[in-house]
Structure formats: C-alpha cells, structure tokens
C-alpha cells in the first residue's frame, strides 16, 4: 500500500489490536469497578490524542488542555445537575429547583447562563463548542502574532491557573472546590448502576475510535504534512504562501474539541466534575500521557494514558510516596532517553526483532520492507 493512503497495513493492524483490547479484552478480563476505572483512563486518552496532533505533529505545546477537558466536563455536569435538581428532589432547600450548592451559597435563582443547559442538545453541542470557541480566541490572539514555543506554553498554563482560581472563587455558580457532584440521571436513565457504567464504557470506546479516525485522517491529509513542515521549518512554509496561523488555530481547536469530549465522558462515567481536573497539575500530567506514548503516535497516546494512569492508581494505592518520585523520574526519563516514547521503543527496538524472529521461523516468506538487514 502507498503511504499516502488513509491507513497502511501496519497502522490498520495497530488500530485493530487497540480495538480488540478496548472492546473485548478489557470488558472480559476486568470486573465492573476496574472497567469503570479504565473507562476513566480512556477519557484522558482523548486529550492525549489531541496533544499528539498539536504537540507531536504541530509543535504547539499547550499546558492548558485541562481547561478544555474541564469546560467539556462542566458543560455535561451542568446538564446532569439541573436534571438532578428537580423541585421534588430539592424540596428541603430554601429555594427548591436550583442546584444544592447554589442554595448553600444563598443564591435565590438560577444564573442566566445556566438556563440553556436544561436542554440536552444544547448541552451536548456546548461540550464541543465551548472549548473550541475558547481555543479559537486564544489561538487567534497568539498565533496571528506569531507567539509560539515556550511563551505559548506559559500562557496556556496561566489560563489553567486562572480557570482553577475562578471556579474555586465563584463557588455559588460553579460548586467551588468540590465541583459539581451528586449527578444521577441522563434523560431519566440512571447513570450510577453497573449496567449503565458498562454501556457508557462502550460508548466512550466508540467515541475514542471516532476521534482516533479523525486524527488519523488529519495526519494523512495535506494538513497533516503541512503541520509537520511547519514544526520543522515554519518560515519556509510561510514563504511557500501558506497562512501558518490558520493551520495552527485549526489544530489547536481540534485538540480542544477532543479534550472537551473526553471531559464530558469523564463526567458521565465518574459522576462528578471538579477543579482538581482543570488546573496546572492535571494539564501537565496530560502532556506526560502523550509523551510516554510517543508524541508522534496517536495510538501511542492512548497506550500512554492507559499505562500512566494504571501505574498511578496501583502505585498510589500501595506506596503514595513512591508515586510522585516515579512520575518525576518518568518525566525526566521520557525526555532524556525516550523522546519518542513507547511508540519509538516499539518501532526501533521491538518491531525489528519481532520481524527478525518471524523471518527465521518461516524463511520461505518474503522479507517485509522496513526490517533491518542483519
């Protein structure tokens, strides 16, 4: 197959293996609790895939992806919270019919910007639209002025800080440091049961594959090639007559949309949304998911998110002190020794050996191209 095609055979096999893992192996091998945990990890994979496009292909490192994850998650949570706060459920409040945290903060009526979230279609549209609009504003302001690299990273990090302070400070409108909790039903369907969680896991997996296919399409399109050209030689692309800023804005918005969808799925599966998922620390952890998987590889990003989070859960359950040391060492090791992450290790170390082994056993088969001569 030509490399300009949508997917090479090798990539197709990679997609199929990941699909088998997510849709068959995990549901069979894990109990309900663990499956829900893995579903949560996969919501971070949405962000990591977006980062693989922005950072790996485009060279734009955003340290504010948590903001978009949070915006998507909060849009979903606002709808669910309004549905849970019917006048009957909240009859003991001094103002029935508004979310409980508003009542605790002496609010008498719903703020106007909460009103649209009574409608599911608007809420679902907002999950994507709000992060994208926000990313568009940041992108237009920064990229048309040719701000990039570390400056962009620092300013997006400042946005993550601003967002957290804002959410925590305005607790009457946002639920404050606890976030929006006690979410119950989606259009009357109880999302807290085991059965619902399993269904949501599969919905999440399917959405992740949609996102992966979109990402794959972008990578293989002319846009994807231009992104890589821009990362390596921005001026040459500009001199060739392309508007560099527009491509960067587009890819940044796409990454934000992915993160927003991930955030909404997080809210649905975990049952709350809080500022602890928005701030500086989670945003930079999302970058490390992508870096561990291999910043150039969209499938690697998924594995990175799964592995790092799985390690985090298992290590911080048994050795909470070790986890931070391990995470710190991981940051350094990935940057210093494995700049292409797991995907790099796979394609440089493991794959050639596998192919060599494969060829020894069946010498009659023709050598697949890409195998190094030994």
């Amino acid at each position, binding site marked *: 197959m030509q490399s300009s095609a949508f997917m090479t055979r090798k990539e197709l096999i990679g997609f199929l293996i990941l699909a088998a893992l997510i849709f068959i192996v995990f549901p069979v091998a894990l109990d309900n609790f663990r499956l829900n945990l893995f579903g949560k990890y996969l919501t971070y994979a949405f962000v990591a895939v977006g980062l693989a496009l922005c950072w790996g292909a485009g060279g734009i*490192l955003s340290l504010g992806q948590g903001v978009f994850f949070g915006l998507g998650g909060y849009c979903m949570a606002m709808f669910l919270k309004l549905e849970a706060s019917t006048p009957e459920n909240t009859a003991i409040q001094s103002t029935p019919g508004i979310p409980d945290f508003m009542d605790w903060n002496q609010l008498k009526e719903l703020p106007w910007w909460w009103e649209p979230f009574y409608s599911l279609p608007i809420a679902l549209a907002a999950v994507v639209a709000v992060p994208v609009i926000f990313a568009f504003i940041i992108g237009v302001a*920064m990229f048309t002025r040719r701000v990039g690299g570390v400056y962009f990273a*620092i300013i997006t990090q*400042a946005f993550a800080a601003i967002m957290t302070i804002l959410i925590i400070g305005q607790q009457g409108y946002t639920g404050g440091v606890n976030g929006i909790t006690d979410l119950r039903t989606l259009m009357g369907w109880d999302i807290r049961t085991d059965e619902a969680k399993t269904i949501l896991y599969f919905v999440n997996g399917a959405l992740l594959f949609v996102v992966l296919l979109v990402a794959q399409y972008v990578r293989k399109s002319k846009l994807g090639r231009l992104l890589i050209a821009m990362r390596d030689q921005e001026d040459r692309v500009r001199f060739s007559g392309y508007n560099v800023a527009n491509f960067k804005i587009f890819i940044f918005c796409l990454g934000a949309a992915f993160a927003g969808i991930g955030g909404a799925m997080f809210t649905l599966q975990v049952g709350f949304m809080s500022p602890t998922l928005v701030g500086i620390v989670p945003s930079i952890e999302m970058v490390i998911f992508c870096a561990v998987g291999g910043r150039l590889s969209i499938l690697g990003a998924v594995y990175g998110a799964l592995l790092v989070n799985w390690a985090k859960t298992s290590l911080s359950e048994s050795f909470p002190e070790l986890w931070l040391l391990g995470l*710190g060492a991981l940051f350094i090791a990935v940057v210093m020794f494995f700049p292409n992450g797991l995907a790099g290790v796979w394609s440089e170390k493991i794959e050639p050996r596998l192919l060599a082994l494969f060829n020894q056993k069946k010498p009659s088969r023709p050598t697949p191209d890409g195998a190094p001569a030994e």
Partner: protein
Amino acid sequence: MFADYSMSELGAIFAMQGFAGLILFSVFVLMALGLAIIFGQMGVINMAHGEFMILGAYVTYLTSNLFADHLPFLFGTYFFVAMIFAFLISGALGLLVEWSLIRHLYKRPLDTLLATWGLSLILQQTYRSIFGAREVGVSIPDWMMGSLPLTDLIEVPINGIFVMVLAVSISLAVYVMMFRSRWGKQVRAINQNRVMAGAVGINTEWTDRLTFGIGCGVAGVAGSAFTMIGSTGPTAGQLYIVDTFLVVVFGGAGSLLGTIASAFSISQAQSIMEFFLSGSMAKVLTLLVVVGILMIRPQGLFSLKLRK
C-alpha cells in the same frame, strides 16, 4: 463604599494597602530575579524554580534550629548566615542539575520544561519525606518582630520592611553582577551571539552552568527571605511558579528593569483590586489583564532587540 470612612481613615487604608502592595512587590521581585537570569538570559524554562526557593527556605529553617540549639547568643544574626547557606546550597544543586540534565536539552526548550517539571515533583516528594508534609516556620529574631508606628493610624511591620530592604539589595547585587562583572559581560555576550562569544574565547559551557547555578542561588535567597513573612511547606513552590513566569515574561525576557517594572505593576494592581474585590477575583482579573496584554504585546513591556 467610601461614605463610612473619614478622610484620614481613608488615607490610612490606602497607605496600608499600598504598603501591602510593596511587600507583595518585594516578594515578586525576589521570586522573579533568579528566573530572569535563567529564563531571560539563557532561555531555559526552569519549572523547578519554586522548589529551589523552597530549598532556601528549608535551609533557613535548619540554620535557625542550629543557632537556637548551639549558638543561642548569636540568634539575632542567624538569618544572615542562613542566606549565605541558602545561596550556596541552592546554587550547588543548580550546578548539579545543569550538568546532569539541562545541558543535554538546550536545543529542545519544550523538553526542558517537562524535565524540570519532573525534577520539581521529585524535589517536592524529597522535602515531604525529610521535613514532613506539614508546613514549618522559623522563629523570627526579636528585633524583627512588631511594627513601626508611623502615625496614629498607619503601622508598618518590621519584617515587611526587612523583606523590602532585602529585595532592593539583592536587585542591586544582581545588577552589579550582570553589568559590572566579568561573568555578566560573558553572559550578555553569549545571549547576543553564542558562536561569536565562543570564538573570542569565552567558555560558553562553563558560563551557562554558572549562570544556571547563580540563578538557582538567587532563588534560594528569595526562599530564605520568605521565611520571614510566612511558613514553608513541600508544595509551596508550585504556588509561585505561574506568577513568577508571568512577571518575567510580562517584563520582557532579558530585561532586568522590565522584570522589576512588571513586578511593581502586577503587585500594585493586585493589592489595590484586593481592596475592592474578593482576593480570588482580584487575582483572576490581574492574571487576565497580564495575559491579555501579553497577547497584544508578546514581547513584554521592555524588549531587547536581538538578532536571532
């Protein structure tokens, strides 16, 4: 909102609020100076900068305990010894970090950012294992306690004045180092043209290492000064990092004067707004204004013309 206050009370409030802003200004200047050296002159993003400050604070804490136990008659002066220790120890760690980590990543600034973030996590956990998760405070010598009554209504705390004096003297020291010493001349030469600086015989590698070390040392002194006005915890460094970077970027990287001017404007804006709004909203507004201005003027307040 001013109707309830008399003129003299109002004047006193503004004076006190202005003084609080000046203390915040000193804190920002102290935080940002080390970073202005490292980021401004070398272009290295050191996300562990806050942890170097905390190291200085812990060194001060240890020194104060040492003096209280063994040299109680000299307790009033321990702070000056502690500052020297803080500079030396943070600086030494900086040299080590440059040698083992940073020098391999000069060509990849975004990767430096991630690696130093990893370093900051490791340092945080190390502090937590050694000193415990709880915040520690130092005992302040008697002469630094209390406050100085200027008028009947206006009082200024002595430790605040002390921090301000420190900020001014450290800024002067950094200025002298940058613009009057041989090292400063070499750093500026490398910043302008690395290849030519090497060609005329400057040891660029060693200068880079020394610059990073001195920047970290200044951070340590800043941390040492912070113990006078607050307590120290293992994660305190992370709280400062966004503010510090914004101060340096807003001032215009590479300009020492810009850093000081931006620290002044950000701190005054924040402390004046804090009087009218809640603390968190004042912070949000200040940061938004700074980020907004940076979007319009990415090079910051004062920019150096450099050939890239």
